[in-house]
């Protein structure tokens, strides 16, 4: 459906100013609103049609005017009409909604990644550069941002109404959502899945900054250690480096460059190594034995928090050479920075 752009702009301006409509603050929002107007239109037309039929028949065929009813069995033609037309309209809604769904849930490849951990009752955001925030999220305007989210306890659901995005945050698995903010300002983050006592207090605020302000913000609020550096420390302290030493004789597979590759498992299957796979391989190693290795890795279930897992995953993700592994082998308290690989996200 194409509304004239001028009319559309006017409509959106007017609605944005009214209290009946949320602000449009992401690239998705206009698409969502377009579908919303279409659905409202259908609803109103449908309601008018049903209302008109009821009204007209009630007036024309009320007992005073029409004392004796004429019996009619039915009409195949009419039945077919009101089966096919609604079906066609619903199918349009289906296709339109599906296109929007894929737009909302398929992140662009150049999106920057931020981790979000939901817990009773707060949102904890972790930027790759080591900035942590609680019930707050700072993002740059005009850049696609992907959130990789997980819950530490129960189901939560991450919702930013002004961006028209929402996604369930689930214990035990990563879910993602992405958006590109289009207007500087602050917007509500709600938890929309009932999660116990303080569910309605699990509210946060997303602050959209201009790219320059965002740059400043990241510099001011860094904890001094990126997630990957934290992950490196954990890698050493939890003894991962004992086996994953990166050299040919190691008892565990080399982790450098493994992220994003297709891995051959001992059971014959092939998997794509992504965040979810890495997390799972740390928690349930016996189910993910790499071909050529024996199932000797212990499980880390219950020994590491979701935050820690994120750090480890981020470390492995950024591991392009064996240099860092060598470092962690020799010093378990490494604060030196590695040579920067081009792909590495640097705040």
């Amino acid at each position, binding site marked *: 459906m194409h509304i004239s752009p001028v009319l559309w702009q006017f409509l959106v301006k007017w609605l944005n100013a009214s209290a009946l409509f949320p602000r449009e603050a992401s690239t998705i929002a206009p698409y969502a609103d377009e579908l919303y107007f279409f659905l409202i239109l259908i609803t109103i037309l449908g309601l008018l049609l049903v209302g008109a039929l009821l009204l007209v*028949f009630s007036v024309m065929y009320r007992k005073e005017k029409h004392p004796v009813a004429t019996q009619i069995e039915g009409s195949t033609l009419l039945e077919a009409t009101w089966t096919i037309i609604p079906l066609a309209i619903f199918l349009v809604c289906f296709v339109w909604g599906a296109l929007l769904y894929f737009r909302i849930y398929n992140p662009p490849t150049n999106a920057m990644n931020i981790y979000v951990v939901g817990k009773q009752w707060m949102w904890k955001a972790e930027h790759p550069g080591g900035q942590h925030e609680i019930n707050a999220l700072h993002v740059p305007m005009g850049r696609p941002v992907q959130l990789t989210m997980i819950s530490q306890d*129960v189901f939560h659901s991450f919702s930013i109404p002004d961006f028209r995005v929402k996604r369930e945050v689930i214990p035990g698995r990563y879910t993602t959502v992405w958006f590109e903010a289009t207007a500087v300002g602050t917007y509500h983050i709600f938890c929309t899945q009932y999660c116990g006592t303080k569910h309605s207090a699990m509210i946060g605020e997303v602050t959209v900054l201009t790219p320059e302000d965002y740059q400043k913000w990241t510099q001011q609020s860094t904890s001094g250690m990126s997630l990957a550096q934290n992950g490196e420390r954990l890698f050493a302290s939890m003894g991962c480096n004992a086996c994953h030493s990166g050299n040919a004789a190691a008892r565990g597979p080399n982790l450098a460059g493994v992220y994003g590759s297709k891995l051959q498992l001992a059971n014959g299957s092939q998997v794509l190594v992504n965040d979810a796979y890495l997390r799972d391989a740390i928690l349930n190693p016996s189910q993910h034995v790499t071909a050529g290795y024996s199932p000797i890795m212990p499980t880390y279930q219950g020994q590491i928090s979701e935050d820690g897992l994120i750090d480890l995953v981020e470390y492995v993700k950024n591991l392009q050479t064996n240099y860092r592994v060598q470092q962690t082998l020799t010093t378990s308290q490494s604060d030196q920075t590695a040579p920067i690989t081009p792909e590495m996200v640097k705040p």
Partner: protein
Amino acid sequence: MSATSSTILNLPDQSTATLPKKNYINAEHGLLSWLFTGDHKRIAMLYLISITFFFFIGGAFAGLIRLELLTPQPDLVASDTYNKFFTMHGIIMIFLFLVPSVPATLGNFLIPIMLGAKDLAFPKINLLSWYLYMAGGTFTLAALVLGGVDTGWTFTTPLSTHYLNTHVITAATAIFIAGFSSIFTGLNFIVTIHRMRAPGMTWFRMPLFVWSNYAASLLMVLGTPVLAIAIVLVALERTFGIGVFDPTKGGDPLLFQHLFWFYSHPAVYIMILPGMGVISEVISTFSRKRVFGYTAVAFSSVAIALFGFFVWEHHMFIMGVSNYSALVFSLLTMLVAVPSAIKIFNWAFTLQQGSITFETPMLYAFGFLGLFTIGGLTGVFLGSLGMDIHLTETYFIVAHFHFVMVGGMLMAFLSGIHFWWPKMTGRMYPESLSKLAAVVTFIGFNLTFLPQFILGYLGMPRRYHAYPPEFQVLNVLSTAGATVLGVGYLLPMLYLAWSLKYGAIAGNNPWQATGLEWQIQSPPLTENFIEVPIVDHEAYDYEWLAHKTQHEVTTVG
């Protein structure tokens, strides 16, 4: 009766009329005769009383919820208490009111009579299912009195299994038991409809009310066991930590969602289908016409029931299910909307060429048509994948399901209660008061729930105890509407109770309707029919009725 009168009410001469000397109500005396009855009509009355009782408890919680939401601050009660309120409201309304409402009261009373049978196939099981219902209700009240539950009626794991210290198992037991009540009712209906029809009562001569209850019974029998399993798993996980839903033990938290919605989606059809049956009867009677496209309406009930099993995942579109499965379930959801649309038009076209009067049941039926249309069309918003992302888990959902369940089902229930009240009790209710109640309910309903659609699009999450201040105006409107709606619900309670003693004597067939139930005395005899009726006409055959009435007049005179 003059042709200019807008009523078809056909009451006997009030100066001489009395209730029939012998009927099911006075057949036996004493409380025990009710508590041990095998008569489907008495069991229906037991249900009616108990369901009304629970409806008003559920309604009181609705009032408390709305009162808390009058202001953005968490000022009336603490958040735990608020969470218990909406949980109780939900559990009671769904499991103790909506699911049994029409089938257990009107269905129980009418299905055997409509088929020309003396009783349901298994009268004792019928009584047992009332006791199970009451046991379920008692456990629910126990959970409430002992300190409440705060899982929400959806019992989401792992919240319900690991993180709450309230009376989850008591409430789960309540639902488990009440579920068996529903399974038994469904079984009883199915067997009765298959085996107990009077000679001549073919499948396609059955009233549509019977068809829709048949479809709902299929759902009760096939769906409810899955709920029972899900609930048992929750209890086991809580007590023994077996871990089926626990990711740290290799379980899957989404599994519970699948199991729960595999029942609970069909459950919305268990709730609405019998209501649709009521609407068919009422609209036909008050426009004096056979329902337009009888066969299509009958089959669409069964279609809704069958398709209803294949759309559960639309409650999980944002839960990280695969994009492609979401696609399939969205498509199926759109398909299941079609039979409902068909029915709306069938009902509207039943009016065409009719001879319409606007009695109270008809007003409620019109209310149903309007509200159910809105409820249904807003369901398309939610079936439409991308839109669902923004709307789900917000007040849009709350508004949508209240339009369908409360605007649809409750309107249908009230329509049916008014329609069959003269048959069940032998007396009429005060007419202008009942029409007033219908109008007040309609206005109050819209005022309560229309603002919630807007709140939902603005993003106000459901199950929130406190909310950002910009949402207040719409919430105040909604609470004001709830007050009006509350009055609309209280009125029928009062005048129906009044009518039991003072209402005009109704006679056998005050609406001049065609169903078999209207051809016997009101209130009926315990055995319904003195001799087994032989059915020689189609359903809704008003010409047959006119002929028969004339015949009776001439033979009597």
